[in-house]
């Protein structure tokens, strides 16, 4: 499909996004968070829980005296490694049982501590690049079907039911399966441990659950002769740690938005900015495609009005992602089919918006979310709205296609709902496979005009943000009509300024490797 857009305006928007993100990046570089430090411990190989069910990375970090925090956890832990001669996992266990305390290791000089860490840093990163390697081999051998990649969610609360549902969905044509997190997990300042069978509106994101799903999907991938991808959620208070677990268990995508936690979960903005940066560096290194959350803007406010905000957020997410070393093909910018279906010509507006994103972010792995807000108990009409969404997606060449459910307004998907949803997408995308190639949008027509309005609206918005600065802009409710204070919200106490001697071995290693990767 062809849509004419104002390229200069697009260029200006990118410059504005860069101007907006730069100062935030400076702030990020000077700070760290408890979650970043715990992520470092996990990368070294620390895992498991204490007898009191506290995740060992949390236990260790909590045991670190306040005044030592600014230096980061790595050095302190490195000293312990050097003096005990244990490997990180064993040392973690021992500390969990109270056999050692971080404070007792004072002898070792910094150099020796770094030396003790080095092998484990390397093996930690090798483990991840090993998974990255495994993924590309699997994709070679078990090629996916052409995009839009059909993506479904499982959310029973019980990982074993989820596994059943995921395998069934894969057989029915799903190419990506996401396990929805239980409500509230994103507000926990730790990551639950072990396989779980209880959750509300979703299933807990734990490393064990990741593994259970990965094994099942690898199995069915072999059976189907095509690789089925696995997705989970990072955004929240534990973005960096979940990024580590996902890298180790070879997840293929992670929901990872630079502002979602701030706006939609009232998580402190500084905490979020720092966390998203480190987690995205890890995503970049592990070859994980991030999914951003622009769709959320549309669930609470009117989709026609919010279109410029969505585009603005896409520009900002892109800039943050690039700064973390993510290549375009790993950036799944979000959008959703949320315009009131009963609005005359709403389909035209949806096409305009979707094609606009396609033209502006040609290489990005655009992620298209289904209608949700306007879905009702009328499952028959809902199925039709999903059909028009499916048509828009294939017409505009979206990359990642989150299949809508006719029961969206009723319950988290049943096995049968998912099968109907996939049948819907398969039918529509096949019957109209090359329709997009066949049509030219009338120059000066309604679709072109709408796209133009959205783009110019976005530029104006970015200008305002650039003028005040991102943090102030968020405080003055520029996004999603919610105001968040720079020092307010959840998890601010987990943010700290780095001391000159701050040391995080992985950050350095990643920064180095990334330029290589992203090319």
């Amino acid at each position: 499909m062809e849509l004419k857009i104002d390229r200069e305006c697009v260029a200006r928007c990118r410059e504005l996004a860069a101007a907006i993100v730069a100062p935030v990046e400076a702030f990020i570089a000077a700070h760290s968070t408890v979650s970043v430090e715990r992520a470092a411990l996990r990368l070294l190989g620390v895992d498991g829980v204490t007898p009191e069910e506290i995740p060992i990375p949390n236990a260790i970090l909590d045991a670190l005296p306040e005044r030592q925090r600014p230096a980061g956890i790595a050095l302190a832990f490195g000293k312990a490694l050097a003096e005990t001669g244990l490997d990180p996992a064993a040392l973690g266990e021992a500390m969990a049982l109270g056999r050692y305390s971080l404070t007792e290791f004072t002898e070792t000089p910094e150099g020796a501590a770094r030396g003790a860490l080095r092998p484990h840093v390397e093996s930690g990163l090798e483990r991840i690049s090993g998974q990255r390697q495994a993924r590309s081999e699997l994709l070679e051998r078990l090629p996916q079907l052409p995009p839009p990649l059909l993506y479904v969610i499982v959310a029973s609360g019980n990982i074993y039911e989820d596994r059943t549902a995921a395998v069934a969905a894969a057989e029915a044509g799903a190419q990506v399966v996401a396990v929805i997190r239980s409500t509230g997990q994103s507000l926990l300042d730790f990551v639950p441990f072990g396989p779980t069978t209880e959750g509300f509106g979703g299933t807990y994101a734990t490393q064990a659950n990741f593994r259970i799903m990965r094994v099942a999907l690898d199995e069915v991938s072999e059976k189907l002769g095509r690789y089925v991808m696995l997705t989970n959620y990072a955004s929240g208070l534990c973005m960096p740690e979940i990024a580590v677990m996902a890298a180790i268990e070879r997840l293929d995508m992670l929901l990872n938005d630079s502002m979602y936690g701030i706006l939609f979960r009232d998580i402190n903005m500084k905490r979020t900015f720092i966390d998203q940066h480190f987690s995205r560096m890890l995503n970049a290194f592990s070859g994980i495609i991030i999914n951003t959350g622009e769709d959320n803007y549309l669930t609470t406010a009117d989709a026609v009005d919010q279109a410029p905000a969505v585009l603005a957020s896409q520009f900002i997410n892109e800039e943050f992602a690039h700064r973390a070393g993510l290549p375009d093909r790993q950036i799944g910018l979000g959008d959703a089919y949320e315009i009131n279906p009963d609005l005359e010509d709403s389909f035209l507006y949806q096409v305009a918006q979707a094609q606009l994103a396609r033209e502006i972010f040609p290489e990005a792995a655009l992620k298209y979310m289904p209608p949700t807000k306007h879905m009702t108990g009328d499952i028959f009409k809902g199925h039709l709205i999903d059909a028009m969404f499916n048509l828009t997606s294939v017409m505009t060449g979206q990359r990642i296609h989150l299949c809508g459910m006719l029961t969206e307004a009723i319950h988290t998907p049943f096995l049968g709902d998912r099968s109907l949803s996939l049948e819907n997408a398969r039918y529509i995308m096949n019957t109209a496979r090359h329709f997009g190639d066949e049509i030219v949008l009338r120059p000066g027509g309604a679709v072109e005009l709408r796209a133009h309005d959205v783009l110019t609206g976005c530029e104006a918005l970015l200008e305002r943000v650039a003028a005040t600065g991102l943090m102030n802009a968020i405080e003055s409710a520029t996004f999603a009509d919610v105001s968040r204070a720079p020092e307010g919200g959840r998890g601010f106490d987990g943010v700290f300024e780095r001391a000159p001697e701050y040391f995080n071995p992985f950050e350095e290693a990643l920064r180095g490797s990334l330029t290589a990767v992203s090319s």
Partner: protein
Amino acid sequence: MTQLVKPYGDTQNDGKVQLSFTLPLEWSEAADEAARRLAGKMGFTDVQVVDGRKIATGYSFFVLYASTPQAVDVDSIAPSSERTHAMSMDEIDALIEERIGRKIRVAGACIGTDAHTVGIDAILNMKGYKGDYGLERYHMFETFNLGSQVAVEELVRFAKQHRIDALLVSQAVTQKGSDIKNFTQLSELLEAEGLRDDVVLICGGPRVTNRLAGELGYDAGFGRGTLPSEVAAFIAVRLAERRRDAARR
């Protein structure tokens, strides 16, 4: 061993079922409640009326989700069909040649006022259905396709005249039980004429099941998705058996 199964929503044995229906009631909250109670009377639990709306003056439409306490024992269910003998066209021709030694004479028709010939044609015509050749293509079948809207009297007359071995009749229109009416008329007329035992009597159509056919006194019934070879195999085997039994006597 009995295996009891229940509908599956997202958890083993949750018994989840989707329903929709129209009630001859003006819509109101009370109408939603009426729908809920009706589902309760049907024996469903955890009933959710997820949609209820006016579709016309005095009529409302409802969508519900609910759980059923019922379960069904699947091991007690024998596949109720005659699609059992999977044989190729050649195998079937060979079987007829060997066990019957002459061509089998088959007549097919769409009886009563029914004009839906596509189904019976799919079984009889050369072309066949879904890549499976029709009976005309077989060496050992001689087929007569009488087409649409054939009166049963006419069909019976034809069968007598041409010494038909197997009668194939189709019905697609089922409204107000017209299919049952026509099928019954035919089998009764054959009985009356004393022809019933001389023919293999087969009915088919989108709503036909082998069980129904049995109840109507037919030798077999074939429903949606039937392949010609399944029918051919049934006819050949059944006639061969009759031969054998006859010989024994």
